């Protein structure tokens, strides 16, 4: 999956956006994760001691500025949701 990484507005998190247009049935995929919040537009999950947001358009937000770490986490999540 091709994606791009950007810094969030608050400059304390990274968002990973797929370059291809996708739409994910989050409520279907929710069972694959340790979910804190499940909604049709966003999942919030616990993953490797972090709180990660997954959006229905495939965007993933990781609260770190470590691009390598964010990329690795996003790749793991994309294996599950795509």
């Amino acid at each position, binding site marked *: 999956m091709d994606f791009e990484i950007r810094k969030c507005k608050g400059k*304390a998190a990274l968002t990973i956006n797929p370059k291809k247009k996708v739409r994910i049935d989050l409520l279907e995929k929710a069972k694959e994760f340790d979910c804190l919040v499940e909604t049709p537009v966003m999942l919030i999950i616990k993953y490797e001691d972090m*709180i990660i947001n997954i959006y229905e358009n495939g965007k993933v937000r990781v609260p770190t500025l470590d691009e390598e770490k964010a990329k690795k986490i996003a790749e793991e999540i994309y294996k599950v949701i795509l």
Partner: protein
Amino acid sequence: MKALLLLSGGIDSPVAGFLMKKKGLDLLPVYFDNYPFSLEETKQRALDNAKKLDFEEVLVVPHGGTLAEFMRSCNRKYQCVFCRRMMLRVAECLAEKHGAKALVTGENLAQVASQTLHNLLAEFKAVRIPIIRPLIGFDKEEIIRIAKKIGTYEISTRPVPCCTAVPRKPATTATEEALLGEEEKISVEELVEKEVEGSRIVRL
């Protein structure tokens, strides 16, 4: 007279608190915790600002569940206005519980989506308790100048992950009618009750 100060992790509400404390108001700060939409760092910013302003305790309210409920069932563009309506409703109940007669907020006209005049009107219609907004007509530069003077600016501008409940295109001209229509889809009273019951005092 006692009032509740709605204290976020941002620049404005600590300044609002400082100004009203200077006027002799007895304030109890209240932090609405949007976890997991906002994270521990945001809460810590609010607590550090409260300590900077010489408060000894903060009332922390679990607000994330309410936001999730709205997100599941309602029109996303109203998320921020709904969030503030619920904060005011819960704060009104907490005010009664803690003997406060008013709320103090750091709202500043037209600074962010939830603070257009339309949205402010739609928000305050959710409650009856008087709301004191000492910064409503201030320029941002004035607020920043005061924040720097009182030592809260550095705390308020620490980088933290943004609140992820904010929609991509928040409504800027919400009406009460539209909001009531959305709120009918969820149980507002139950959500208020849950937040009030879940509130905890954190000693600084």
